[in-house]
């Protein structure tokens, strides 16, 4: 299979902190890949390593068959990159930004660009600094797709956008995706966005790629099992596919990938009062998959909050 993006044991340390750990990723041509993870899990760093903006501590990556650390001008011409926050020169007008960007590309789809700017009612004379976050995102998207790139890399493109603008932005993205043969890597922590557009997802947690599979498969595979006990729940034995296990009151909540007979038998062996298997949507599956151990908050510990603590909460 023709892989447009490849990484091999890609690792990045900032000081002693490992931000991306031994990432092996292969994204085939034509795939719309949702790159998921909570804030600070290494998504942006990975994307910047792919584009050669950040140097890996170990490992390597390639885009369109070229090593990321030495991408040629021709490869860059075929790759669009939408950085987080949509940075464009704020002193420019939209027209200036178009003129500046167009100068770098031999191939430039002006009708498409005009169509996008027209659709979002963005006049060429408008200064970038006067645009809202959403409008800047729209301009950035228009500039990114105008050179008809083979590969689009979008780093959290919908961050900071309100619901309506996000929907408009994604609609545009879906139309762009429908142009054949285009590969898109799309990082986000907004699951509904990813669910709408991605046909494959990767979940990065603590710098490690925990999931890399088709979106539907992930939704189908992750289940929550709630075992009810009369008293303190016992420990669940370690087994394949067990993502997490935690006690919530007298219940033991398990998150399991590919729930099987073996899991069922292990659960029954603990002699619970009840076993409930809960199907999860993508967002729930992602949350269960990526959150750490649940912190026990004093407020939920059964104690009555005193007046002072309520006052403090109000002040906060």
């Amino acid at each position, binding site marked *: 299979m023709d892989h447009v993006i490849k990484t091999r044991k890609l690792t990045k340390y900032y000081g002693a902190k490992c931000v991306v750990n031994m990432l092996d990723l292969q994204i085939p041509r034509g795939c719309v890949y949702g790159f998921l993870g909570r804030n600070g899990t290494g998504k942006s760093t990975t994307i910047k390593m792919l*584009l050669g*903006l950040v140097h890996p501590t170990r490992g390597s990556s390639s885009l369109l068959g070229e090593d990321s650390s030495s991408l040629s001008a021709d490869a860059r011409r075929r790759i669009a*990159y939408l*950085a987080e926050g949509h*940075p*464009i020169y704020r002193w420019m007008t939209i027209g200036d930004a178009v*003129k500046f*960007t167009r100068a*770098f590309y031999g191939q430039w789809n002006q009708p498409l660009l005009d169509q996008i700017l027209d659709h979002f009612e963005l006049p060429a004379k408008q200064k970038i600094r006067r645009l809202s976050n959403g409008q800047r995102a729209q301009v950035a998207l228009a500039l990114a797709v105008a050179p008809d790139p083979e590969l689009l890399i979008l780093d959290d493109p919908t961050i900071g956008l309100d619901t309506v603008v996000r929907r408009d932005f994604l609609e545009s993205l879906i139309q762009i995706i429908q142009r054949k043969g285009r590969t898109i890597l799309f990082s986000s922590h907004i699951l509904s966005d990813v669910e709408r557009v991605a046909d494959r997802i990767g979940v990065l947690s603590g710098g490690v790629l925990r999931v890399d599979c088709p979106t539907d498969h992930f939704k189908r595979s992750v289940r929550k099992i709630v075992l009810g006990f009369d008293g303190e729940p016992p420990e669940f034995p370690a087994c394949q596919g067990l993502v997490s296990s935690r006690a919530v009151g007298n219940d033991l909540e398990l998150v399991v990938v590919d729930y099987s007979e073996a899991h069922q038998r292990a659960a029954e062996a603990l002699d619970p009062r009840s076993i409930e298997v809960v199907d999860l949507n993508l967002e729930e599956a992602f949350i269960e998959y990526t959150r750490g151990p649940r912190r026990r908050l004093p407020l939920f510990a059964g104690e009555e909050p005193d007046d002072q603590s309520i006052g403090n909460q109000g002040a906060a």
Partner: protein
Amino acid sequence: MIRALAIKELREIGWIVAIALAVYMVAVAAVASTAVEGGLQSVPGLDWVMYKLFQLGLYRCLPFVHGDFEGAFVIISVVLALVLGFRQSAGEAQGDTFGFLLHRPLSRRTILLTKLTLGVGLLWAASATAILVLAWWAATPGSHPSPFEWSMTYPIWKMWSTIPVVYLGAFLSGLRQASWRGTRLVPLAAIALPALIASMMPMWWFFSLPLSALTAVLLAVSILWIGETRDFS
């Protein structure tokens, strides 16, 4: 592509150079208008202005012979060099536009060299304009109250040739990463010694010029190396 990049740079730093050029011209005008009897100092009501010009060494200054035009020239030039250097490097980081710029289909070396060429070119052009305008005034018969020879301008041209070192030091300080601002300014501090030595040594052709040129080359190479190796995160 390079033209588009150069136009962008020109639009970003052109106004800074225009302001600096205006300040140079004010200094030149002050020197030219007070150097001769019956000049600006004879206009009533300008005592305060004359006093300030006197404090700055620009009152009754004999350009290229005595007075402190060279001092004013160096101060304006150094400030301009610092502002241009930081604007072109740290300005991109502050606006978060390095990622956008460096992803354009041009080599990083070309992008940085275009910036440096524009920066040094404008810095040199603006400061040379100030020298040339004052020298042109001095060379006009009846202007300069002493015999004027173009060779009298050599000392200021020597200062002019050293200014890019300050610019490159500022550019490198703005580009390189450091754990805190103090250590980020190390390149700027490091150029002080060679710049001082270059301006004080008598054998300009044999010592000062090669030292300035070597410092400038080392700074330019460091800028290109940092540009290739640093993380733009």
